[in-house]
């Protein structure tokens, strides 16, 4: 965007590179002290930004493979294109911003950081999302998601905006199945929910979080933030923090 920035960016052409070769290049660039890295022609290479620590910006053009940002601790990853499966797997801190749709199990077991998805997400988004002390992950889905959103969720926040829905109903069933921590906030209704969750009104703190997240979404992708914020939200939280306590103990 800004040519001045581009000049200082470390460029990597991923064309015909294997997963291993590409990641070696990325890691070397980080070791060499580059703070801004741009990768072009990405075509399914996995594990990009895996385990990388620190305030580094990675700009990806193309379609990154599975496990983008796995175990990542701090970087900001921007993808210009769709993502695949397991984005942000067990990430600790940082941001992943996807200008497109993503596949299944986005944010699996993440325990910190932010994932912003412009469009739709696949199955099991935010499965076993957790939180720990000050770390609280957040996943924002601009469109809609498929079944098992927030499955076995243990912490953190999932916000689903449904911006591309005409009838306001997300075609997602079993939302929050096995959930025992954290919060799911929805704009619109879902087709079905797990029996471990119940619907609540948003409180003041929730409203503050939603406003913050929607403004940030709007900053990344552009949307009528005031219009979105003016609509009705509801939140799903677990009935119990230990739903299977009776199943496994005696």
């Amino acid at each position, binding site marked *: 965007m800004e040519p001045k920035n581009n000049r200082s960016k470390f460029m990597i052409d991923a064309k015909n590179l294997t997963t291993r070769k590409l990641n070696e290049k990325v890691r070397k660039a980080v070791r060499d002290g580059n703070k801004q890295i741009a990768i072009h022609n990405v*075509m*399914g290479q996995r594990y990009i930004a895996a385990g990388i620590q620190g305030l580094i910006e990675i700009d990806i053009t193309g379609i990154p*493979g599975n496990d983008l940002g796995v175990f990542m601790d701090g970087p900001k990853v921007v993808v210009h294109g769709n993502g*695949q499966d397991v984005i942000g797997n067990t990430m600790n801190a940082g941001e992943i911003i996807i200008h497109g749709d993503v596949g299944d199990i986005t944010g699996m077991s993440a325990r910190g950081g932010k994932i912003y998805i412009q469009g739709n997400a696949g199955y099991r988004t935010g499965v076993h999302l957790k939180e720990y002390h000050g770390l609280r992950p957040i996943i924002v889905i601009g469109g809609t998601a*498929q079944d098992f959103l927030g499955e076995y969720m243990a912490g953190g926040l999932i916000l689903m905006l449904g911006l591309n829905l005409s009838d306001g109903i997300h075609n997602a069933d079993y939302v929050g199945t096995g959930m025992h921590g954290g919060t799911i906030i929805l704009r619109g209704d879902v087709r079905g929910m797990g029996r471990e969750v119940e619907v609540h009104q948003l409180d003041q703190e929730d409203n503050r979080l939603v406003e913050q997240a929607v403004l940030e979404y709007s900053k990344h992708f552009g949307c009528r933030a005031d219009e979105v914020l003016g609509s009705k939200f509801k939140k799903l939280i677990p009935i119990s923090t230990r739903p299977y306590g009776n199943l496994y103990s005696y």
Partner: protein
Amino acid sequence: MKDLAQQLEHSPLRSAERRNNPYRDDKVIDACSIFGMMDQNRRLFTGNDIIEASANMNERVNGLGSGYAIYGLYPKNRKNYALHIMYDDKEALKWGSKYIGSNFEVIYDEEIPMDNLDKSKQLPIMWRYFTNIDVDHLNRMEKEDYMVKKCLEINTSGRGAYVFSSGKNMGVFKGVGWPREIAKIFRLEDYKGYLWLSHSRFPTNSPAWWGGAHPFAYLDSTVVHNGEISSYGANRRFLEMLGYRCTFQTDTEIFALALDYLLRKQHMPIEIVAKIFAPQRWNDIEKMPTNEKNLLRRLRITYGNLLMNGPFSIIFANHGLMVGLADRIKLRPLTAARKKDLFFLSSEEAAIRKICPEIDEVTHPQGGRPVVARCNEGIAS
């Protein structure tokens, strides 16, 4: 510790792992890859693109099995059943050729052209026969039954002969190797088709051998599969009661046999077959309108033994038809895409974009809902 590691490295037990994992990482995380590509106007194309797409997913697999199915392959012999048979040795070839000759009218037969890339290893013997069933009084269904019966007889003969393709104007090529390797061995650049399936394998709980590679085919139906069938035992017993036999030591052949039974023998539409393989849960069925509820109940009761339990995504093909299906809770990936008349199914979107960067439409199908594409028709899902 180091001594122990070195010892293990040279043990024959680890030889497979050295191939699987040349970098000696601690853990290999893999899965199969599946890919399908169809020209809905039946224009023929070469395999270059699908080989490229399949190889783009090499990260998923470990080189222990790849295969291709090609439709529109033998236009000159389109009316003959093309039998592809793999043999253990020359003796098996002699037995097999005699058996084919005495059960079919053989129009033409030849060795399948193969290039041995690694001279230190021996390739299995592969032969193809273009045949007719010269029994006048049989109708089409009976002829097809006869063909399936003969394939199973050969595969269970214990002679080291395996029919792995038996349709008309189509063929399967498969073996142990990476996608590019297998394509080179079989000289796939020489072939053209309007519908190609490919598979690359990460064997989980069955041996990696030439017959165990995908696709699996009976008559014109082929199937490639990513996942595993936990209900294999129940499915197998059910199919064996109907006269089928499992002969390739791999769970996926269950799909091929079940599809032969349900689609060809029972004349079921593929949408109903999907409801048998991946039915809704009972409590979801109870919520449905009466007609649908009754149908789904009856299907689950009658064909409960063909429910494919476990994580899977499959691509199934027949002449003019390509179908993608994932298990009902979508535990394996599946992406569908379209570019004008070209229709794609793949484990990963990147593989599609590799060969067709500007796709018109990409979808992630719902579990248990088949994505059906037919020639000269749109996609109905």
